[in-house]
């Protein structure tokens, strides 16, 4: 990248940006279709199958509908923020992908072009920084809507995102220690060709904690309390319609795709797969590595949908307890154990085993403490509390 003329650099960057952004948008459409079809399949029904073959054109029909719908702005909203909020959610989702390495490199016309839009040496920090901004879109949209259900959704969402962001950040420190680099490309390269060399085995508890936290960050079931339909109508986007609602919707799916891509890079070996990524010449190996990365991300996205219909939604106090009392200790332990064992033995196998054992011990201790200190719950909750949730209920 350093020895490249400026023109080649700019041109290749523009082409990469165009391809990736379009893949993201098309990916969102495919995800919406897949989610509905897979949901239908899991619930033993059909799902949308009328528009186009297998209902494939359904997202386009939905998109057209969103675009031609009246762009309604209710009277009681705070207009500047109401308009700004969907964009503030969508933009972070879009720009996070800039640092994700989605393949090794392609050599074209004598220039080696890395398959990554921006290879910056603080890649993972950039991702943490940008994803932490996504919460503004939710919070501002909720507040600007001037609707109590929206506000409750926004408050829940901000508390949830702040809580799980910690786990998200701490979960990757073990990887950073073993890789000694913050660059996503370096992290992906560090992992070998075979699955047992990938980070998810070395840092298995951290991998689980990170993935769970990512589900919470993307506001997906079982963590979708910000838009729990039974309690809050549609949560923070209750007052939104037409394209603005569609932007919220797209941002959610985009976050899922980017989150999967980041997880694949960090934990699942990036574009490595049994040495298949080195097959072929300088062009083909790049394309194959891109394909491997794409398939891995797609599988991970399928797991997203799978989880949605497997696990029931958390209650709010369960959500907070889970985040602070289980995920956070597990992530912290993984840092201590990884660091200590790596210095002492320098063997990835020992680190991997130690991590699992330590996480098991910590979870047992926490669970034991919780069981011992369990305060008797009130036998029957006051029914009125459920009908009109107050702001205090939402944070407690």
């Amino acid at each position: 990248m350093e020895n490249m003329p400026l023109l080649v650099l700019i041109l290749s960057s523009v082409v990469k940006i165009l391809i990736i952004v379009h893949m993201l948008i098309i990916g969102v459409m495919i995800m919406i279709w897949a989610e509905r079809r897979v949901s239908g399949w899991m619930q033993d029904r059909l799902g949308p199958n009328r528009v186009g073959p297998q209902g494939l054109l359904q997202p386009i029909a939905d998109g057209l509908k969103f675009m031609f719908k009246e762009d309604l702005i209710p009277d009681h909203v705070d207009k500047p923020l109401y308009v700004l909020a969907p964009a503030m959610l969508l933009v972070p989702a879009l720009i996070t992908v800039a640092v994700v390495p989605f393949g090794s490199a392609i050599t074209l016309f004598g220039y080696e072009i890395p398959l990554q839009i921006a290879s910056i040496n603080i890649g993972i920090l950039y991702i943490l920084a940008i994803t932490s901004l996504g919460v503004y879109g939710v919070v501002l949209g909720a507040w600007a809507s001037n609707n109590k259900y929206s506000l409750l959704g926004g408050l829940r969402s901000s508390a949830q995102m702040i809580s799980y962001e910690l786990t998200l950040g701490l979960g990757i420190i073990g990887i950073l220690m073993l890789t000694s680099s913050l660059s996503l490309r370096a992290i992906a390269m560090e992992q070998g060709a075979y699955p047992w060399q990938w980070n998810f085995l070395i840092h298995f508890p951290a991998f689980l904690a990170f993935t769970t936290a990512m589900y919470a960050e993307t506001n997906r079931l079982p963590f979708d309390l910000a838009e729990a339909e039974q309690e809050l109508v549609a949560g923070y986007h209750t007052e939104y319609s037409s394209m603005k609602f569609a932007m919220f919707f797209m941002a959610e799916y985009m976050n899922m795709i980017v989150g999967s891509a980041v997880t694949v890079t960090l934990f699942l070996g990036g574009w490595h797969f049994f040495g298949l990524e080195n097959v072929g010449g300088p062009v083909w190996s790049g394309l194959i590595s891109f394909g491997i990365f794409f398939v891995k991300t797609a599988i991970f996205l399928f797991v997203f949908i799978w989880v949605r219909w497997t696990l029931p939604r958390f209650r709010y106090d369960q959500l907070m307890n889970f985040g602070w009392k289980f995920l956070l200790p597990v992530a912290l332990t993984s840092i201590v154990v990884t660091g200590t064992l790596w210095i002492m033995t320098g063997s990835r196998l020992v680190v991997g085993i130690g991590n699992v054992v330590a996480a098991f011990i910590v979870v047992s201790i926490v669970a034991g403490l919780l069981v011992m200190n369990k305060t008797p719950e009130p036998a029957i909750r006051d029914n009125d509390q459920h009908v009109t949730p107050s702001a205090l209920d939402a944070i407690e």
Partner: protein
Amino acid sequence: MNPEQILFILFGAVALIGAIAVISFRHPIYSALSLIVTFFAQAGLFVLLGAHFVAAAQVIVYAGAIMVLFLFVIMLLNLGTLSVKGAMSGKLKGFAIILGILFAAEGIYIAVNALNDTAVASAEPATESVTTTTYQIGELLFSKYLLPFEVTSLILLAALIGVIVLVKRGNQDES
């Protein structure tokens, strides 16, 4: 003018406009948002100085965490539009004036120095070597600045424990 200078002026202007907007807006939510804009512009300035790590930390800590909590509190308390008359009274006014004068003096001092080309000239070479990579920051933190680093972590630990104690006491009062 090279591209870096243009970017510097751009980020500087955005930071200034954001800072002015913080105190000009009547509504706390808009003020908080303006502060976020300023933090972003500052992060841009850090990137221009080659301090990528500091820029990312700025966004993660200030824009990503602290300001979210600010917004959270503002929304939870449902603060309305503030009036200048009500907020500024008596002791607070005197305190604000003293702080303002001190801050203005500091600003003028820096500006005069910058015009005489002493402060700026001495600051420039440092940007190349000191804060370019995370690796160097880590090395400095754990060697030259080990004591301040450990002291800071102790202070943070004390704050953490303090928060837990306060919350615990509040719970006992309730029950």
